[in-house]
């Protein structure tokens, strides 16, 4: 169990991106960062994952009791992270092979089955649909067994129905981990988050969420109402930005 805390001003090159950022993400929960494009959502994902970039944080990121989260983070992005030349089992076990440890192919097969890809282990990513590719990416996140998982718009390239199914699957399989979900989809944020923030240039605003537990039913009136409120909020941001 690892709580994440992020505090400070985020800079992109020489210009400020987000001032006075304060995020307190509890251990074992889904924390969601919502915002319009260009606000710096993905930069925060890279910051937490320890990925290099032209950004700079004047402040601190800490994970649990021990310093930075680097090395304890698994990441899943929108796409393009699968190896086109490798089959699914090799794709899932690439982490172990990149570190030089023994790949656990039995576990990889088991995880592929859990994400609903049993029987497709020998396929290559080009032979899969977009949703199936993200299932492989999810299996790869699971095999890494990291306490912190960063999901950077993982389902944004999928159609609505596939996206809903993937949200349920991810919520089920990533239960118990500290998940940071980056999204621009209000419904996704409301369905999956234990805690959610709206990001803007002046910091992060905590959002009100329905009282029920995630993954929330997308037909529930409080979920729909929260979605409508969020859309209004986002629309205001877009008008200001545009």
């Amino acid at each position: 169990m690892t709580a994440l805390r992020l505090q400070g001003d985020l800079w992109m090159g020489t210009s400020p991106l987000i001032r006075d950022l304060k995020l307190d993400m509890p251990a074992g929960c889904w924390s969601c960062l919502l915002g319009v494009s260009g606000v710096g959502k993905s930069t925060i994902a890279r910051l937490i994952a320890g990925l290099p970039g032209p950004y700079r944080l004047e402040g601190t990121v800490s994970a649990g009791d021990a310093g930075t989260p680097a090395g304890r983070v698994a990441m899943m992005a929108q796409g393009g992270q699968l190896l086109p030349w490798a089959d699914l089992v090799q794709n899932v076990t690439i982490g172990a092979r990149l570190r030089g440890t023994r790949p656990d192919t039995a576990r990889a097969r088991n995880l592929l089955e859990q994400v609903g890809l049993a029987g497709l282990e020998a396929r290559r990513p080009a032979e899969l649909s977009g949703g199936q590719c993200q299932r492989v990416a999810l299996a790869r996140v699971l095999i890494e067994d990291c306490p912190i998982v960063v999901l950077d718009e993982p389902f944004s390239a999928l159609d609505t129905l596939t996206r809903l199914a993937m949200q349920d699957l991810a919520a089920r399989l990533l239960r118990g981990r500290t998940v940071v979900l980056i999204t621009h989809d209000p419904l996704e944020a409301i369905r999956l988050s234990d805690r959610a923030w709206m990001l803007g240039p002046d910091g992060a605003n905590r959002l009100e969420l329905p009282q029920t537990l995630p993954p929330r039913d997308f037909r529930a009136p409080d979920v729909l109402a929260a979605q409508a409120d969020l859309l209004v909020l986002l629309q205001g941001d877009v008008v200001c930005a545009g």
Partner: protein
Amino acid sequence: MRWLGFGPLLRLLLALGFGLGLWQLVVWATGVPHFILPGPARVGASLSNNAPLLLEHAQFTAVNLLTGLAAGVALGVMTALNLALSPGARLMLRPMLIFAQAVPVFALAPILTLWLGYGAASKIVIVMLVIYFPVTSAFFDGLMRLPAPLTDLAHTMRATPLRKLFLLQVPHAIPALFSGLRLAVVYAPFAVIIGEWVGSSRGLGYLMLMANGRGQTDLMFAALFVLAAQSLALFAALEAISRGRAKLREP
């Protein structure tokens, strides 16, 4: 046009027949003497009459061509891997590589013949030098163009540089390497013939010069044909490997 649907072999034969017909027509129409431009029949006769001679010289040329290709590709691949792995090597070696490429390698042929003699060594080295840069450059570019998501993957998975190179960069760069190899296969026959022209006592290039000196234009053309056949076979072999690899990737 149903005949367009015929097998590729038949289409090739048709094209060849058309080319030969046109050639014969030019010979008949202009009435050039056969020591300037022999007709296809004459060249064909020379091919079959001098078969053992042509075969012997073709063998010398082919062995040098293939050895030079293999050595040049091996050297190019190793240089590209080294450059990709070490920023220090990039800083030191790249300007040297560019500078070396600015010297036309063909112009070095007489010097190489002076240093390495009239035997096989000078030809192999010329081929190596000519194909070294295109192979290195194409493969290195492929290695350095790992897509950003895969670079991020290596980072979050805490990959060692060597494992990142061999598990991500090399597989990604294989198509780029093949485009380098295609250039190499086209340049290599030029290089080996230049080497033989500058100084040799064997090989198709030598045979062409000798036939030219003796006014045996038909033998010269025959040697040219054998050389062209070699180049085509080389290119076809590479294409077959490339296609086989692509098929392996998308069964």
